[in-house]
C-alpha cells in the first residue's frame, strides 16, 4: 500500500504566486523526499529532509516536516511556467533502507 498521500491532487495558480503541496504518511520514517516529474518523463529528486529536521530550503523550495503529525509540506515560491509538473513525496522507513514509497502526487499547473 502507498505510504504518502499528497494534497491537493491538482493545483492551478498564476505565475509568480506561491504553491504549497502537502504530504501525509503513516509509519515512522528515516527521511522524506520530494520529487518532480515532467509529463512523460522520469522523476527528478528535489530535496530530502531527515526525521530530525523540521525545515529545509533549496533555492525557491522550502520543505517542512512535522513528525508528530506525520506530515510534510513543499512550498515553491515565485512560481514559474517551468514549475508545471507533478510533485511526489516519498518516504524511507526507519527500519527499511532499501525501499522508498511514493505518494500519488500533486499535479501543479502554472498559468501564464
Amino acid at each position, binding site marked *: 500500500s502507498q505510504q504518502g498521500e499528497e494534497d491537493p491532487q491538482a493545483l492551478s495558480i498564476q505565475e509568480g504566486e506561491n504553491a504549497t503541496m502537502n504530504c501525509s504518511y503513516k509509519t515512522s520514517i528515516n527521511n522524506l523526499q520530494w520529487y518532480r516529474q515532467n509529463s512523460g518523463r522520469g522523476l527528478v529528486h528535489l530535496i530530502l529532509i531527515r526525521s530530525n529536521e523540521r525545515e529545509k530550503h533549496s533555492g525557491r523550495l522550502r520543505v517542512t516536516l512535522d513528525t508528530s503529525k506525520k506530515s510534510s509540506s513543499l512550498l515553491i515560491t515565485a512560481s514559474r511556467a517551468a514549475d508545471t509538473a507533478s510533485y511526489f513525496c516519498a518516504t*524511507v522507513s526507519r527500519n527499511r533502507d532499501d525501499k522508498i514509497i511514493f505518494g500519488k502526487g500533486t499535479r501543479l499547473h502554472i498559468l501564464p
Partner: protein
Amino acid sequence: EADIYQTPRYLVIGTGKKITLECSQTMGHDKMYWYQQDPGMELHLIHYSYGVNSTEKGDLSSESTVSRIRTEHFPLTLESARPSHTSQYLCASSGGGLTVTGELFFGEGSRLTVL
C-alpha cells in the same frame, strides 16, 4: 544529470510478443529498481535488486521478470505481453542505503503500449 538510461523510450507491440526493457546506469550503483506508473498516477514498485545476482519482487505483483548479471544492467522482460501491461515503466538506482544516501536517480522511462 543522472547517468541512467532506458531503452526503448516508446514501444508499441501486439499481444503475445516477448519484450525486454533495458536499463543501464554508469554510476556504479548497487541498488536498482523498476516502477510501473499509469499516466498521472502513483508509482508502484515491481522489482528491485541489491546487487549482482540479487532480485526481489516489489509491492505490486507483476508478470514481468528481471535479471542482474552485471552491476550496471537491470533489464525487465515480459514473456507474453498483454494489453493490461500497457503502462510506463521507470527504472531507478541508488548509491547506497536510502537512509544514508537518500535519493533515487531515475531514467526517462519506457512507455509500453500493447495492442
